[in-house]
């Protein structure tokens, strides 16, 4: 969308205290949190993005969600850069979706997924800062009765150059807020090479509260007279709630009410969450599990396997004639890979706090998509937009799961049955594991062909498996029923372009959608697509006795930015020199979310199945790097998320439900298994790529290729624990 900051001359205060009207709720969050203070920020609003208080404090509004990825700090840096303000005086606050709707979506899109937080809003937030700077300068110039062109702003101070007179932002903010903003076209942005705050690895703005227990997450929200709810949804996806015997638990300590939440779930409301959970566990529940209860992991896998040979498939990328290449090949290599369902498993289970009356409904929750949560509140409450709002709370991890709003709807459905009483719904870890929106399950048959001179002539890649869009957003599917998202990292061009030139190429998808609900799982479909392509590239290179790096380079002449990150990790790991004795190397690269990423791993293997990762080198070219220190953290963290999956994690289906209920059967990397990661942040400029997700996809194939090099064994299904392979 195109969008420009709008002026609002009224003093504007964000938060429930002003938004609740008749509810008299107040934003009674626990004391001392930065959030609680920010929610009450008062001062003249210069633009929608910038509020400046008389003491020169700069409050920067952030529409996207912070879930650890550093977007809050990065977006504030971009606004501050153009505003020319004193970074040490910057604080932030979240506008609410309700306020945004009331102001014609002045803050644009709230959605924070697809690594889009910064790359898709950088231009308009920078203009919000630049516009505010222009207005502040004009206000000072008006006061001094001098031309604005003679004034300069720097570090929250405005100076009239000829006379040396100066003032501060805080002193002129009120006057600036009453000035007509400049025409959008007249607002120019800095060249990134002139950045002083953006582009620097400044410290995050939200760290202190995360080290002293004061940061408020959704699970920590406390409202006056609040009750707590624990919930069970039918463990079989698509099943229904038949009945429950509330009489058995109503006398249990603290229990206030047992409620049917929707067609498939029941909740116990009690004074404390622990009481609610204990009673819920004791509650006799009868489910109508339905037909899906007959589905098992093996039946899903055999259905996908059949898709590898199906006639009907959607083409995602094609050139030349693969069939002819296969028919005329001097040599052919074939392999079948697969990738499992995966729960996001953020550390904080899903939760939302809702309060409903016939005249107002408000929700406090950690969400990656404030506007979608707002829409869910409208729908569940049946109230119009002006009578609803959502207050965003810090997320205890998102990874894509909190882009969905099922838990918000549930909280409102419960609150509706106890009007006027705030209800905090928290899922148990078990509920969270059983009711995820899982990384899609797929298989892939890879076929590569060579001519008599060992040149790669063709690549056929048949994906069989699940479409995320079919489960999440059918309206975004192709008119033919295809799902373009399946081809992330494999597309002919764009943010997810395939990074090899192969004379005969066919990549297609036989859609097979099991009943397990799919979701966008950090990295989405590049995770398995990169494993399929990059492991198979090593298989092809091995077949013709070529070095994996040289083999790739020959196919990458038209992909210079991919080649640059690949070369960067190869150089740093010392690919051209022999590895230390007993150490083996692997490489991988890809393009995803607009960025170019590569990784190289050095590992040793003992007993044929115990992996020690000695060293990882990872490079990323995100075009512009707003905060290189945070990008480095996203890169090293990506190896935790990506390698946890490939070593330990899968969700399997038995009798229609997910088997793994907690971290004991769905483990995650801990300190001892964390490899040292050297990050190379190499922004080449000229485009804006994402950061939070791309690197995950190269983590697994770099290690898998090193493992194959060490052992001669190629692993094609995951997790590695199923092959009795573990960390040393």
């Amino acid at each position, binding site marked *: 969308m195109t969008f420009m900051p709008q002026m609002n001359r009224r003093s504007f205060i964000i938060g429930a205290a002003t938004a609740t009207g008749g509810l008299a709720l107040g934003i009674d969050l*626990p004391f001392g949190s930065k959030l609680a203070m920010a929610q009450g920020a008062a001062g003249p609003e210069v633009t929608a993005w910038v509020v400046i208080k008389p003491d020169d404090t700069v409050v920067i509004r952030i529409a996207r969600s912070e879930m*650890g*990825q*550093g977007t809050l700090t990065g977006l504030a840096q971009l606004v501050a850069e153009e505003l020319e303000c004193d970074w040490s005086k910057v604080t932030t606050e979240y506008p609410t979706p309700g306020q945004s709707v009331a102001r014609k979506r002045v803050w644009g899109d709230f959605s924070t997924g697809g690594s889009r937080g910064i790359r898709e809003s950088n231009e308009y937030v920078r203009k919000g800062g630049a516009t505010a700077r222009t207005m502040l300068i004009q206000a000072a110039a008006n006061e001094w009765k001098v031309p604005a062109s003679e004034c300069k702003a720097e570090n929250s101070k405005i100076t009239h150059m000829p006379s040396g007179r100066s003032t501060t932002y805080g002193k002129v903010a009120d006057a600036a807020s009453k000035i007509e903003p400049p025409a959008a076209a007249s607002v120019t942005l800095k060249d990134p090479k002139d950045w002083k705050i953006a582009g620097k690895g400044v*410290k*995050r703005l*939200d*760290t*202190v*509260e*995360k*080290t*002293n*227990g*004061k*940061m*408020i*997450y959704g*699970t*920590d929200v*406390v409202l006056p007279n609040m009750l*707590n709810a624990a919930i069970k949804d039918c463990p079989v996806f698509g099943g229904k709630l038949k009945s429950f015997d509330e009489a058995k638990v109503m006398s249990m*300590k603290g229990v206030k009410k047992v409620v049917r939440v929707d067609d498939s779930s029941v909740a116990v409301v009690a004074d*404390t*969450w*622990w009481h609610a959970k204990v009673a819920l566990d004791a509650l006799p529940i009868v489910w109508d599990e339905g037909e899906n209860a007959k589905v098992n992991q093996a039946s899903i896998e055999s259905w996908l396997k059949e898709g590898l040979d199906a006639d009907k498939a959607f083409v995602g990328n094609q050139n030349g004639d693969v069939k002819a290449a296969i028919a005329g090949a001097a040599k052919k290599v074939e392999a079948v890979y697969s990738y499992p369902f995966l729960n996001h*498993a*953020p*550390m*904080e*289970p899903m939760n939302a706090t809702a309060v409903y009356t016939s005249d107002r409904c408000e929700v406090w929750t950690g969400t990656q998509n404030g506007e979608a949560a707002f829409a869910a509140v409208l729908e569940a409450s049946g109230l119009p937009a002006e009578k609803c709002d959502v207050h965003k709370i*810090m*997320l*205890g*991890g*998102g*990874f894509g799961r909190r882009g969905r709003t099922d838990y918000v709807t549930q909280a409102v459905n419960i609150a509706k049955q106890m009007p006027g009483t705030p209800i905090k719904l*928290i899922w*148990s*870890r078990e509920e969270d594991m059983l009711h995820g929106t899982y990384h899609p399950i797929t298989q892939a048959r890879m076929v590569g062909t060579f001519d008599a001179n060992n040149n790669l002539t063709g690549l056929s890649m048949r994906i069989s498996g699940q479409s995320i869009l079919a489960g999440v957003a059918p309206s975004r599917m192709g008119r033919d029923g295809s799902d373009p998202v399946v081809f992330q990292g494999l597309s002919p061009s764009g943010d997810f372009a395939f990074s090899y030139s192969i004379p005969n190429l066919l990549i297609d998808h036989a859609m097979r959608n099991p009943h397990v609900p799919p979701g966008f799982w950090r990295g989405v479909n590049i995770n398995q697509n990169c494993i399929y392509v990059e492991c198979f590239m090593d298989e092809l290179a091995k077949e013709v006795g070529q070095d994996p790096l040289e083999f790739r380079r020959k196919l990458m002449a038209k992909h210079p930015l991919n080649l640059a990150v690949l070369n960067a990790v190869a150089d740093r790991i010392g690919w051209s020199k022999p590895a230390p004795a007993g150490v083996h190397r692997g490489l991988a690269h890809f393009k995803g979310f607009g960025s170019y990423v590569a990784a190289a791993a050095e590992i040793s293997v003992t007993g044929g199945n115990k992996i020690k990762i000695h060293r990882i080198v990872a490079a990323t070219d995100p075009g512009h790097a707003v905060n290189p*220190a945070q990008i480095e*953290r996203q890169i*090293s*963290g*990506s*190896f*935790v*998320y990506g390698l*946890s999956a490939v070593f330990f994690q899968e969700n399997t289906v038995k009798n229609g439900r997910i088997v793994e209920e*907690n*971290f*004991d059967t769905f483990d*995650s*990397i*801990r*300190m*001892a298994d*964390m490899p*040292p*990661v050297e990050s190379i942040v190499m922004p080449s400029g000229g485009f804006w790529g994402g950061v939070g997700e791309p690197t995950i996809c190269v983590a697994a194939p770099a290690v898998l290729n090193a493992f194959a090099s060490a052992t001669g064994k190629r692993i094609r299904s995951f997790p590695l624990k199923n092959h009795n392979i573990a960390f040393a």
Partner: protein
Amino acid sequence: MIELKVNGKMHRVDVEPDTPLLWAIRENVGLTGTKYGCGIAQCGACTVHINGEPVRSCAMQASEAVGKEITTIEGLAANGMVHKVQKAWVDHDVPQCGYCQSGMIMAAVSLLKEKPKPTDADIDAAMTNICRCGTFQQVRAAIHDAAKA
């Protein structure tokens, strides 16, 4: 009704003896810095100190903590001074989402009490908390830094 001594202060809390200490701390004492992650002592987000020892409070009954010194993340700072581990965490910008970090910090404080100059192997052995964002590299650096303070 039981009595719990949390961060040096006595609290009379109305819980059944088998209530997990985690929930007594969060819901009855009202200190929410200690987090719920798994409920089965797997993830460590709920780590507190009982008489100075790290304990996963989701798997300890509140009654077992009666008569003992319970320290939570809110009680680490002393005399208005943040703990050296908290300072190192800020210096290294460790947290991402931050949800696991209370438990991570409590585990690190225990480690340094036990081993003031821990090796990487000591850190590997003591820091068994889960962090899904993957802050381990910064956690390790911060622990080494705190050991020098």
